């Protein structure tokens, strides 16, 4: 029961994965090292930068502040899965159109975090977008273009719903 190594079964991007993991392995290291899903990035490793953002049971979390062993029986989605399903195709295109990325290191986390806000519906104010993205550092863009892209998608999606 109180062991260091554990067998886990996790549904990652819709596919069940069974692995034996060391309890100390964080979720983001598990995704990158065991499953070669390197779209989730490792930045600060203490919950400040947001580069490791992934979804667990549909909600965004810090991949560095959750252990892989805690994901046993859970549903995990990474940028690879969310991009493949085309759930955020419009948001990805808006990031390109608005130059909302340069080096791209923060982009997977930024996209997943923004999508959580967009999925809650409505057209958030620029201030609300900034507050929602406050936990995701970008050292290239100065955020203006990121906020532009998120706002443009919010308006476009609201238009489609209307």
């Amino acid at each position, binding site marked *: *029961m*109180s*062991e*260091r190594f*554990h067998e886990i079964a996790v549904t990652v991007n819709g596919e069940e994965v069974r692995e034996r993991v*060391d*309890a*100390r392995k*964080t979720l983001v*290291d598990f995704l990158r090292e065991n499953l070669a899903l390197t779209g989730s990035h490792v930045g600060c*490793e*203490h*919950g400040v930068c*947001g580069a490791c*953002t992934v979804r*667990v049971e549909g*909600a*965004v*979390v*810090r991949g*560095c*502040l*959750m*252990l892989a*062993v*805690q994901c046993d029986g859970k549903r995990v989605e990474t940028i690879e899965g969310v991009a493949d399903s085309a759930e955020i195709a419009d948001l990805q295109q808006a990031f390109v159109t608005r130059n909302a990325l340069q080096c791209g290191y923060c982009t997977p986390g930024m996209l997943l*975090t923004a999508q*959580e*806000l967009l999925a809650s519906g409505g057209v958030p104010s620029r201030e609300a977008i*900034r*507050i*929602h993205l*406050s*936990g*995701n550092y970008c050292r290239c863009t100065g955020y203006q273009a990121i906020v532009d892209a998120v706002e443009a998608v919010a308006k476009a999606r609201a238009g489609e719903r209307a």
Partner: protein
Amino acid sequence: MKPAPFAYARARSLAQAVDLLAQDDARVLAGGQSLIATLNMRLSHPALLVDINEIDALGGISLRNGELMIGALTRHVEAERSAEVARHAPLIALAMPHIGHPAIRNRGTIGGSVAFADPAAELPACLLALGAQIDITGPTGSRTVVADEFFKDLFETALGARDVLTAIRVPAATTANRVGFAEFARRHGDYAIAGLAATARADGKHFADVRLAYFGVGSTPVRARHAEAALANGDVDAAVVALVQDLDPPDDVQATGAVKGHLAGVLLRRVARQLMEPRP
């Protein structure tokens, strides 16, 4: 960095969690939003993590006997969206958006934030301002500690090594209750440079039962009792002056003690304005 090795066990019940915590160097793992960061930085190296996330009895928000009870495993996001919290614990509702970032709030728990007791965290100060009660279960049974006696020193609380914080309880707000909250942080959602959570009861043109709980200005959340007395007389200027008797903020990486002392006065003026407004 990566954590040092440790064993991991998932507790299925509170009793099992308390049993597992009998092992030397065992720590409770709730939301993990502070603990796992300290593991990654090797500031903490427990032998065993006891994961309490699957103990259903530790969740839930309910109103009972004029008190709002928030289960320890309630995620910040649940409290943030809760109609019960907004109605019966408006101070906690005000503070919630300032606690971490969305991804942190999706995972972090109310009990974890209180048990970790970071001196710059919002919730411990809210509990102090509200005169909350903190329910604890340990090897000898269950007990309750009031917030004024819970926060002992830097990251030190009334919790023992084998104790599990199970819930917090706050008196449900009435129309006479006023609340105020403000903080300064470099980035929205980060730990505050300095912050203030306050409660009072409107009593004609004056206040009664003013409780001012500062955070980010000492080893624990701090009551400003001289300023409370001055504010109860309706004198905001005197309350700001009285703060020097209440607070002696040390320098830290974010600001000097002098800056924090100045900010405490600015926060008091802002929060006093909020206290003067009746609840909608």
